[in-house]
C-alpha cells in the first residue's frame, strides 16, 4: 500500500494557497545555485518551470526528445487560455472559474488544487503579456476574450487559432534568457528511459541520446516530469507523432502511483478519420462551436448533400437536448452525443461524422468576421479535406485529445516518490474526470510559473536532498535495466512492424475503452491487450541497432509502455462502477442517457501501484468537498 497524503493545507478554500505560500520554507538566494534540478519535457509546464526556476537561481537541466525545446506539442493548442480576469464584466470571478472547472470535471478533481488553478490564472495572463505574447486585442487596445465550452462567461484569451504556439514561444523566450545567463542547460534529442531512486528519493534519470544511442546518467536533487499526456495510446489521436507516456510510465514502474488512467478526453471537434494509412487525427479548435451549429439529418442513412436537407429535416441535437448551453456543452457531452447519432446511422451520409455548420454565422456577422476569427482553421480544414468550408459545412468527429489521468501528485505537485514532481498534463490533479476547453494551457503554465517555484523550495529545505554521484549502484542498475530492455526489443526479431501492433492496440482501446464503456467490453479489452503484449514481445520486428539514430527502436519502446498502460486504463475503467465526465459506463446512466455518478462509493482518486506487468494494487485518495455541493451536471 502507498500512503497517499494529499497535503491540502487547512483553512478557508480561498486562503489556502496564500497562507500556504507563507508557511512553506524558502531556500536562501545564495543556496539556490547549489541545487541541481532535472526537468523532463519542454512544453508549457516544463519550459515555464525551467525558466522560473532558472530565474530563482537553481541549476536547471532540461531534457527533451525534440531537436528544439520549442517544438513540444503544447505548440499545437489552438483555441485559448482561460483566466478569471472578468475584463468583460460578465460576472466572472476566481470562484466562478473554480466552480466551472470542478463541475466540468464532474466533481472528481481535488477541490483545493482546482481553486488554486483558478486563483493563479490571472497572473498567467499578466506574465504572458509581459513576455510579449501577442494576444488578440480590441480596437481600444485592451485584451479580447471569447467563450468556450462549459462556461457561460467570456474568459478565454487567445491569439488567432495559435494560442498554444504563442504561449509556448513566450515560455521558450524566458527559457532562452536563462540559457544565456547560464542557469539552464538544454539537453535536446534525449529520451528519459528510467528514473533513478536513491534511498527513497528521486535523484536522477537515465536518458538515451537519440542521435548516438548512448545511455547517459544525470543527477538532480529533484526530478520534475512535465512529459505530457498519453492520448497516443489510441494510436490515432490529436497528439503529436512523438507524444508518449514513457517517462511517466517508467517512473510508475519505479513506484510512482498512476491516478485515474481511465479519465481520457475525446475531443468533439476533430476531422473524421479516413483511410487505414492515416497517421493522426487533426483537431479543430472547439472555439468553432461558438459560431458553428452542430447537426445531422433526422433520418438514418440520409445520403443527400447538406444543402439538400431542408431545415426542418435537420436535427441540431445539442441545441435540442441542452437548450441552456447548446453547442457549448462540455467536451465529453458533445462527443458522446456525436457518437450516439452516428451509432443511430444518422452521421453524414451514413459515415461517422456530423456537420459543423457556419451558414447562420455567415448571415449574422458576415464571412469576413468569421474569417478574422477562425481563418487559419478554415484554411486547415480545406487543406486536409480538399473541401471549402465557406461553401459546405465542415464534417467533424470526436478524437482522443487529452488525458486527465496521470501520475498521482499531492498539493505540492509531488508524487508519492519524494523529490519526483509532476506538472501539466502528466499529472492527474486539476481537471477531475473531464477538462474544460482552454484549461490545459492554464494548468501547464500555472504549475510551471506559479506553483512549482514555491513547492520545490519547500521540499529542498525540509528534506535537504544531497547530491549523489552517478557512479552509484542505483544509477548503474537503472542504466543496465534500460540497456537490457532495449536489447530485449531488438532481440525479438519477429515479423510485425511496431506500428501495426500499435494500431491494433488503438482499435481495441477506442472501441472498448473510448467514449462509451461496459464491463463486458472492458474485460474483453484486457484479454486482447494482454495478447497483443505477448505478440509484441514475440513477434515485433525492429530494424537497425541500439547505438545509432533509430526511430524504429524509439517507437517500439514507447509502444511497449502503451501496451501496459492500455491495460491499466481498462482495469481502472472496470473498477469505476459509475459514469463521470469522460468515463462513461453504459451500465450507469440516467433515464435520459446522462452520466450517473456514484458519489457514495466512487468519490475517490484511484491511484494504482505497479506490482508487475499486468498487476496493480488500488490505493484510494478520498475526495472531500467542503465548498461545493455535489450536483448532477446539467447543461440543459
Amino acid at each position, binding site marked *: 500500500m502507498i500512503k497517499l497524503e494529499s497535503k491540502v493545507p487547512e483553512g478557508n478554500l480561498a486562503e489556502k494557497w496564500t497562507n500556504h505560500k507563507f508557511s512553506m520554507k524558502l531556500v536562501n538566494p545564495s543556496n539556490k545555485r547549489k541545487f541541481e534540478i532535472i526537468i523532463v519535457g519542454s512544453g508549457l509546464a516544463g519550459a*515555464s518551470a525551467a*525558466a*522560473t526556476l532558472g*530565474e530563482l537561481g537553481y541549476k536547471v537541466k532540461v531534457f527533451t526528445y*525534440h531537436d*528544439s525545446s*520549442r*517544438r513540444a*506539442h503544447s*505548440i*499545437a493548442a489552438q483555441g485559448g487560455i482561460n483566466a478569471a*480576469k472578468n475584463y468583460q464584466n460578465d460576472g466572472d470571478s476566481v470562484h466562478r472559474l473554480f466552480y466551472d472547472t470542478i463541475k466540468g470535471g464532474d466533481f472528481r478533481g481535488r477541490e483545493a488544487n482546482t481553486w488554486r488553478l483558478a486563483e493563479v490564472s490571472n*497572473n498567467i495572463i*499578466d*506574465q504572458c*503579456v*509581459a*513576455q*510579449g505574447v*501577442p*494576444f488578440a*486585442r480590441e480596437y*481600444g*487596445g*485592451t485584451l479580447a476574450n471569447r467563450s468556450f465550452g462549459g462556461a457561460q462567461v467570456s474568459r478565454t484569451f487567445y*491569439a488567432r487559432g*495559435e494560442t*498554444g*504556439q504563442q504561449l509556448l*514561444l513566450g515560455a*521558450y*523566450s*524566458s527559457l*532562452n*534568457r536563462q540559457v*544565456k545567463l547560464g542557469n539552464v542547460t*538544454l539537453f*535536446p534529442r534525449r529520451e528519459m528511459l528510467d528514473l533513478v531512486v536513491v534511498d527513497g528519493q528521486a535523484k536522477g534519470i537515465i536518458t538515451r541520446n537519440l*542521435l548516438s544511442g548512448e545511455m547517459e546518467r544525470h543527477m538532480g536533487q529533484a526530478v520534475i516530469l512535465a512529459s505530457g499526456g498519453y492520448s497516443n495510446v489510441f494510436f490515432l489521436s490529436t497528439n*503529436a*507523432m512523438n507524444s508518449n507516456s514513457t517517462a511517466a510510465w517508467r517512473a510508475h514502474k519505479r513506484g510512482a502511483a498512476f491516478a485515474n488512467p481511465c479519465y481520457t478526453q475525446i475531443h468533439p471537434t476533430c476531422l473524421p478519420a*479516413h*483511410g487505414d*494509412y*492515416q497517421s493522426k487525427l*487533426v*483537431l479543430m479548435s472547439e472555439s468553432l462551436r461558438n459560431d458553428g451549429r452542430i447537426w445531422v439529418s433526422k433520418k438514418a442513412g440520409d445520403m443527400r448533400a447538406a444543402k439538400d436537407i431542408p431545415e426542418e429535416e435537420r436535427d441540431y441535437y445539442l441545441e435540442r437536448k441542452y437548450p441552456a448551453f447548446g453547442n457549448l456543452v462540455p467536451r465529453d457531452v458533445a462527443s458522446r452525443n456525436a457518437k450516439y447519432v452516428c451509432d443511430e446511422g444518422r452521421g453524414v451520409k451514413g459515415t461517422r461524422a456530423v456537420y459543423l455548420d457556419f451558414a447562420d454565422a455567415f448571415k449574422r456577422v458576415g464571412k469576413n468576421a468569421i474569417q478574422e476569427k477562425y481563418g487559419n482553421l478554415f484554411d*486547415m480544414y480545406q*487543406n*486536409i479535406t*480538399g473541401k471549402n468550408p465557406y461553401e459546405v459545412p465542415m464534417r467533424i468527429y470526436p478524437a482522443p485529445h487529452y488525458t486527465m489521468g496521470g501520475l498521482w501528485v499531492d498539493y505540492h505537485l509531488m508524487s508519492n516518490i519524494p523529490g519526483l514532481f509532476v506538472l501539466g498534463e502528466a499529472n492527474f490533479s486539476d481537471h477531475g474526470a473531464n477538462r474544460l476547453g482552454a484549461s490545459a494551457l492554464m494548468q501547464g503554465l500555472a504549475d510551471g*510559473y506559479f506553483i512549482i517555484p514555491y513547492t520545490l523550495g519547500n521540499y529542498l529545505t525540509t528534506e535537504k536532498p544531497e547530491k549523489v554521484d552517478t557512479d552509484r549502484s542505483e544509477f548503474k542498475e537503472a542504466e543496465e535495466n534500460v540497456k537490457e530492455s532495449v536489447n530485449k526489443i531488438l532481440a525479438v526479431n519477429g515479423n510485425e*512492424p*511496431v*506500428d501495426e501492433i500499435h494500431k491494433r492496440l488503438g482499435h481495441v482501446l477506442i472501441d472498448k475503452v473510448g467514449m462509451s464503456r461496459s464491463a463486458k467490453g472492458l474485460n474483453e479489452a484486457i484479454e486482447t491487450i494482454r495478447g497483443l503484449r505477448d505478440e509484441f514481445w514475440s513477434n515485433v*520486428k525492429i*530494424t*537497425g541497432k541500439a547505438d545509432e*539514430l533509430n*526511430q524504429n527502436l524509439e517507437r517500439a519502446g514507447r509502444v511497449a509502455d502503451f501496451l501496459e498502460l492500455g491495460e491499466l486504463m481498462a482495469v481502472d475503467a472496470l473498477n469505476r462502477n459509475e459514469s463521470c465526465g469522460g468515463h462513461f459506463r453504459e451500465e450507469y446512466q440516467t433515464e435520459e442517457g446522462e452520466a450517473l455518478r456514484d458519489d457514495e462509493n466512487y468519490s475517490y482518486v484511484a491511484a494504482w501501484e505497479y506490482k508487475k506487468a499486468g498487476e496493480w494494487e488500488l490505493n484510494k485518495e478520498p475526495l472531500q468537498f467542503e465548498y461545493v455541493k455535489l450536483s448532477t451536471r446539467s447543461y440543459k
Partner: protein
Amino acid sequence: MSEQTLNLTLKIWRQETPSAKGYFEEFKVAISPDASILEVLDILNNDLEKEGKRPVAFESDCREGICGTCGIVINGHPHGPIPKQATCQLHMRNFQDGETIYLEPFRAKAFPIIKDLIIDRSAFDKIQQAGAFISFNAGSAPDANEIPIPKEVASLALDAAECIGCGACVATCKNSSAMLFVGAKVSQFALLPQGQPERYQRVQEMVAVMDEAGFGSCTNTYACEAECPKGISVTNIARMNRDYLVSKMTTKS
C-alpha cells in the same frame, strides 16, 4: 474521399551519417490522394521495416503545420510546391498519377545533415538564446491591460510571431540567409511596447550570433517569403535592418 490510387516514383535522399556520401534511392509507391506526403513515408517505412531494410529517417511531430519539425525539399521547393504549407500539410492530391517526386533534406551550411532527411537546426536556437526575449522575472508583471496595445500593432506582432522556425527560408535562399527568421523574431519584440527597453541591444546580439552560425546575407530575392509556410513578410527583414542600423548609430560597442 477519393477511391483513386496514385502510382508514384519517389527519389529519396539517403545518407547514413553526417559524413557519409549521400545518394538518391528510388521507390515505387501506390497511394490514396487523400494521404499526406509524410503518410506516404510512413507506409514506405512500414514496408521497409517488414523487409528488414533501413527505413527512411525523417522528422515530424504535430503534423498540423505548427511545430516546424518537418521540412523536406520536395521537387526543389522546401515544403513542396503549394504555397503556405508545411511538409506535413502537403496532400498527394496535388500530384499526378505516374509522377516522380524528389525528396531531399533542407540544405545549408548552417544546417548539417544528420541522417537521410534529418538536419541539425540548432543554430536557430542559438540565435534566439542571444536575445529573443524580454528580460523580466515571473511574478513581476503588471496587470495585462495596463498597457493598451492597438489592435493593428498586436496583429502585426502576431504576423511575425507566427514563424514556426522550420528553416524553409534558409533552405530556399541562394545565400542560405536566415534574415527572414531572425527578422520575424526581432520584429515581434520591436513592434510591442514591452520589447522597447532592449530593442537595439537585442537586434545587435541576435545578428552577431546569426553571422557566426554561418548563414549568408540577404540579397533581396524574396524567395524566403514565397516559400515560407506561414507567409512571413520580408518587411520584417527591412525592420530588422533599420533597427540594426539605428542600434549601430545609437549604442556603444
